[in-house]
């Protein structure tokens, strides 16, 4: 076989990554169910993984090519394939061993359109995986996220979990039966209200009783890092979808305590953005610069889009 023929058959993507754990963390953040189908899109800029739920919730994980030690992209267009997210994460997890750096190579497609993964850092011990892929059956709905007004309505919170979790805790404190409370919450919705003056975010839960929590920007500066809002808006979101946007972040990410940014767009579309470090889990963080921020190249971006509930 001539070398040109080999080149012609080069796979769409061959990439190497030196931090499996970072990738596991990033992908786990969008894993809100045990069995979930994901669509993976490859491009010269990196890898995007998309997960959806009932047309109301979409999550995207952006793994930019800069995250990879090696990124060889040979495809025309943007190849897409479907894969089971759970299997993919569990499988990647097998490559990560505590206390060891684990360099892996990912290739797509294999001879039978599989996703191929193998460890490349040791000669005499090798871990390998082949994951069956499928043709993505649905074209994922594109979210055309547009700002609602002239300036975006956003706020950035530390540990976005806090407001929701504490809401639940408070409901329990008020004497609600725990199971009852979750049952109501899972089937119910949470209203998010932003108002510019005084700058305030309000979470309102309605069940057989209601609960309202206000986060006034000036009072909760430790929690609410940034707030931009020039007109009052109010939208309702399914609680289970809101929970999915935050509850699966690995604890290591929460410990990092970067802010999570929430933006409300046109039609009440809620965008939740998280940053997950994909740096090597070495003792020192060589990628942290003097200001204490990690270089953007070592960050995976995660975005959730939640459709607001339409009032009847």
């Amino acid at each position, binding site marked *: 076989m001539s070398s040109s023929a080999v080149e012609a058959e080069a796979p769409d993507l061959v990439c190497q990554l030196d931090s499996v754990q970072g990738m596991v963390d990033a992908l786990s953040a969008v894993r809100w169910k045990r069995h979930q189908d994901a669509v993976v899109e490859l491009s010269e800029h990196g890898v995007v993984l998309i997960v959806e739920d009932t047309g109301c919730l979409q999550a995207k994980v952006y793994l930019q090519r800069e995250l990879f030690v090696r990124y060889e992209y040979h495809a025309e267009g943007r190849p897409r394939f479907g894969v*089971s997210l759970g299997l993919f994460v569990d*499988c990647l997890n*097998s490559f990560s061993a505590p206390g060891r750096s684990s360099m892996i190579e990912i290739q797509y497609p294999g001879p039978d359109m599989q996703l191929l993964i193998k460890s490349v850092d040791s000669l*005499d*011990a090798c*871990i390998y995986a*082949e994951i069956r892929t499928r043709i993505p059956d649905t074209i994922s709905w594109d979210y055309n996220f547009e700002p609602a007004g002239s300036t975006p309505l956003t706020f950035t919170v530390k540990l976005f979990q806090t407001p929701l979790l504490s809401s639940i805790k408070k409901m329990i404190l008020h004497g609600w039966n725990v199971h009852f409370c979750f049952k109501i919450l899972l089937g119910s919705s949470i209203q998010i209200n932003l108002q510019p003056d005084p700058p305030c975010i309000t979470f309102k839960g309605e069940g057989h009783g209601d609960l309202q929590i206000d986060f006034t920007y000036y009072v909760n500066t430790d929690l609410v890092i940034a707030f931009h809002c020039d007109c009052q808006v109010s939208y309702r979101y399914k609680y289970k979808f809101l929970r999915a946007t935050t509850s699966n972040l690995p604890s290591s990410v929460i410990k990092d305590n970067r802010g999570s940014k929430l933006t409300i767009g046109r039609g009440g579309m809620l965008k939740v953005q998280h940053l997950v470090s994909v740096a090597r889990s070495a003792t020192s963080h060589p990628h942290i610069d003097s200001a204490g921020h990690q270089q953007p190249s070592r960050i995976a971006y995660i975005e959730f889009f939640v459709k607001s509930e339409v009032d009847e």
Partner: protein
Amino acid sequence: MKFKAFLTEHGVNLLERRFLPALDKMGKICHLFLTRDHAIFLHNLLNGDGVQCIAQFRKEALFDDYRISSQNEDRIAFAIDVSLLLRAVRSSVSICTEFGNGPSANRLQIKLVKKLPLNCTQPMPFLTFETKGYKSAVIQDVPISKPLSRAQVLELQTALELAQDIPRTLVQVPDSNQLQNFVERMKQVGDLLNVSISKYGDLHVQISTTLITLGAEFRKLLVIGEQAEAPSDDRNQSAQTRSERAISRGDAQRVQVSVKHFSRSLHCHLAKPDCTFYGIAPHGSCLTVIFQFFIPGTHQTDKSISLHCRLPVLDPGSS
């Protein structure tokens, strides 16, 4: 039927810190088989299709002043709850260290007794631990099954002899932690594990379902028994191709076992063995794991202790 012995300090350490925690992971109930020369802990030899685990000690490894007598050639066997046994040994140790006063002061005696428990009309058998502290003595009774009948003991003895066949090829796994870690994570992906072992020193474990194939290959391991030179053209092949070729050449064997069993057998590392060997028994009848213990401070095998597991094979595979 009489049994009475004193556990030595070394014996207590072996049981409390190493062997009983490991055996506890293998299953709640085990048989304790006592002979004139040996004390043997046996899991799943008579019943069940779980992992067979055999921990055998020469009496000197655990006891001194070892006295046993029975009408069945001085052999006694009974079933015992490993976790209860561990608890009894642990609390005896804590009493010894609390009140102990020199090695002779805190001797731990174990003996077989029959007692009439509260609210019972029939006396019940117990393994009794007697610890003499500085000012007090503590007695703990661990309930045991009725001693096995002559026929049952014979059955146990036969099963034990059958379980001694050694695979023709054994490979040594250098880093069991790595393997354990991998298998723990692998459990998420599937239930059945293909294990192939070659005369070249390759150990290849793999889970294969319709959706995923996930495997690990460890190469150039130390081989004991039948070995062969790895063909040079295999070097650039994938792990799966290498295994297939080795099997077709008759240089490797493959069996399928339960991932859960495999992971359980790895818990034997709680017993802190010095070496671990994997091999496939003749005709692919089981996957055998042999743990080797050195005499402390040397590289010589401690022949007074032996531990090995036999994992049932779910599919005879190609052999």
